[in-house]
């Protein structure tokens, strides 16, 4: 507030004008009450009576200021009332009377505390004295008169920072398109207010409760500090120059990093709209400027507690997500991915008729007798050596490993859409598997032999069992492939006629001849030698 400006209460006062006056009066009045309460707590009993009178007067003062709204209403409804002193005169009179009492007692106390050398109390009394003077300045500037709209707008156009601020805040409210304790541990609090007294008062309360308080004098600084540092909670004044509290709040809520920080809005605007809007904007709490220190403490604690609960919830949700992913991964280790998806989608029974697949059986010859010579660990190690490589190969070619039983390995191609040319894929797989065994044999004194059998046909595939379930295949084609293997020759890959016909142009075969397949009769078979 600088320079003498006349604030005119016209017969029909502007809403923003009244709000400005209220704001200008309420800020110091509230602070007078707050400082006085603090003094009452901290001063020796000798001063209690007089401080009590100051407090009483400041409360009456606040009531008078609240009556400003009524004044506006009454003037609006009866602008021609000339009976007795008009509302503005009465208002100024009441303000002066209260301020007179406050100033008088403060003056008196100042005299006494100066003598006693009570520096702390003296300091606060001086503050109250200055605030009283500040208020008289405002009162002096409120003149009553009847003016034209022209005159009114002239005043409103005068550079009046607080008026602009209040109007802007009210306008921001309208234009915003936004869809919507004693604490256990000290918090890092960011306090944003452009008024020094307000900051000082809040700061003292908060620090007394053990919190770490950081200050920003305007919205811009506040946002910068929020981006550079970490805070548990923000106490945010609404009416500030450049960027007002609403705008800071909107900015915070749209920034991913700042969204979670609880915000308590503080303002002397006591319209219910502004409270509602603040909450809609995402403020956690709302405190009027004339706050009760106990309320500040309680609301701060409540907001911090809410944040802690939210953080914990986020943590739990994250844990749940991790566990769920883990379960899924486990499941896809057991079942083909496509099957897992179907189970997730709610299919209860997986049983498919698959028209054309190629089945491969691989058996390690003499492994049983072999394993009786080795220790359990060596058996498993040896098997893993081979089967893990088989598993990689199967995955590479986009085929499905069905299972391994003991030293037998079963793979199928054509179960998933990924490999239409399943016969060729299985053929390539079998050749790679052959080479793997041969290669690995070089590292061992007792080499292993294999037999492999391949057949192409139709099967049934599905998930069988409840505990230790598997995805398995059944059908004639499976049996034939199995016979191809069991009735094969060590070191050879025996394929059926059906598979041969699919692959004869790309791969090289040796005709084995005809063999008697148990339960099927005579079948012509071939040995797969390699690619052409």
């Amino acid at each position, binding site marked *: 507030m600088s320079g003498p400006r006349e604030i005119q209460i016209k017969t029909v006062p502007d809403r923003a004008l009244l709000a400005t006056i209220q704001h200008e009066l309420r800020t110091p009045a509230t602070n007078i009450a707050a400082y006085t309460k603090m003094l009452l707590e901290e001063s020796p009993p000798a001063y209690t009576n007089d401080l009590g009178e100051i407090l009483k007067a400041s409360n009456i003062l606040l009531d008078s200021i609240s009556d400003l709204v009524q004044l506006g209403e009454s003037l609006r409804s009866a602008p021609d009332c000339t009976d007795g*002193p008009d509302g503005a005169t009465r208002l*100024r009179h009441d303000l*002066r009377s209260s*301020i007179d*009492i406050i100033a008088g007692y403060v003056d008196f106390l100042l005299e006494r505390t100066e003598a006693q050398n009570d520096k702390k109390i003296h300091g606060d009394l001086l503050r109250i004295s200055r605030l009283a003077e500040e208020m008289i300045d405002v009162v002096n500037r409120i003149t009553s008169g009847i003016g034209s709209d022209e005159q009114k707008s002239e005043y409103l156009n005068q550079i009046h920072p607080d008026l602009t601020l209040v109007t802007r805040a009210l306008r921001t409210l309208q234009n915003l398109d936004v869809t919507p304790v004693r604490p256990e541990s000290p918090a890092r609090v960011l306090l944003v207010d452009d008024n020094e007294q307000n900051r000082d008062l809040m700061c003292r309360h908060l620090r007394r409760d053990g919190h770490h308080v950081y200050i920003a004098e305007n919205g811009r600084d506040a946002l910068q500090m929020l981006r550079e540092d970490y805070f548990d909670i923000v106490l945010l004044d609404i009416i500030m120059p450049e960027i007002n509290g609403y705008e800071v709040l909107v900015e915070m809520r749209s920034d991913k990093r700042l969204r979670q920080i609880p915000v308590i809005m503080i303002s002397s605007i006591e319209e219910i709209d502004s409270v509602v809007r603040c909450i809609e904007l995402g403020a956690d709490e709302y405190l009027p400027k004339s706050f009760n220190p106990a309320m500040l403490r309680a609301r701060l604690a409540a907001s911090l507690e809410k944040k802690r609960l939210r953080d914990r919830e986020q943590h739990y949700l994250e844990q749940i997500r991790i566990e769920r992913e883990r379960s899924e991964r486990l499941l896809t280790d057991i079942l083909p991915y496509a099957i897992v998806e179907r189970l997730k989608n709610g299919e209860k029974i997986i049983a498919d008729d698959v028209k054309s697949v190629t089945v491969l059986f691989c058996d390690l010859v003499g492994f049983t007798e072999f394993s009786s010579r080795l220790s359990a660990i060596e058996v498993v190690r040896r098997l893993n050596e081979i089967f893990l490589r088989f598993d990689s190969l199967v995955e590479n070619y986009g085929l499905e490993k069905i299972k391994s039983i003991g030293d037998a390995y079963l793979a199928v191609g054509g179960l998933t859409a990924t490999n239409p040319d399943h016969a060729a894929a299985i053929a390539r797989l079998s050749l790679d598997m052959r080479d793997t065994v041969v290669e690995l044999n070089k590292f061992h004194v007792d080499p292993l032999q294999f037999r492999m059998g391949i057949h192409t046909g139709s099967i049934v595939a599905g998930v069988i069992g409840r505990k230790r379930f598997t995805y398995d295949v059944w059908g004639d084609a499976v049996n034939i492939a199995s016979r191809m293997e069991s009735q094969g020759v060590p070191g050879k890959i025996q394929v059926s006629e059906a598979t041969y016909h699919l692959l004869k142009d790309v791969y090289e075969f040796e005709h084995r001849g005809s063999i008697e397949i148990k339960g099927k009769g005579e079948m012509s078979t071939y040995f797969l030698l390699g690619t052409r």
Partner: protein
Amino acid sequence: MKKILLVDDLEASRKLLATRLKSAGFEVILAGDGAEAVSVATTQLPALILMDMRLPVKDGWTATRELRAQETTADIPIVALTAYDSIPQQRQCIEAGCNAVEIKPVRFKQLVEIIGRHLPANGS
């Protein structure tokens, strides 16, 4: 010791000023409304009257006019101590017969000075 009549309807104001005036060396008598002001002034004949204007029963302007109309009290200096700050209201005080008008809030030191200026030279 000079006797001062302090008229104010707010008890807090009366208490404070009374205490301070007493420690400044004055004898203080009190009245809480306009009618009381006239009767106390008439019976006690203070050296000076500090008169608030907004008073119950009878307002300060009326009380002042009445005191001016009485011979015994016509010459007692009356200082209006009021929170009514508009020019017409201040003029009203002078026209009613006040010797001076001070707008609240008034600093105590200033008040003592003003009292000194308006007190009669001898202790009557």
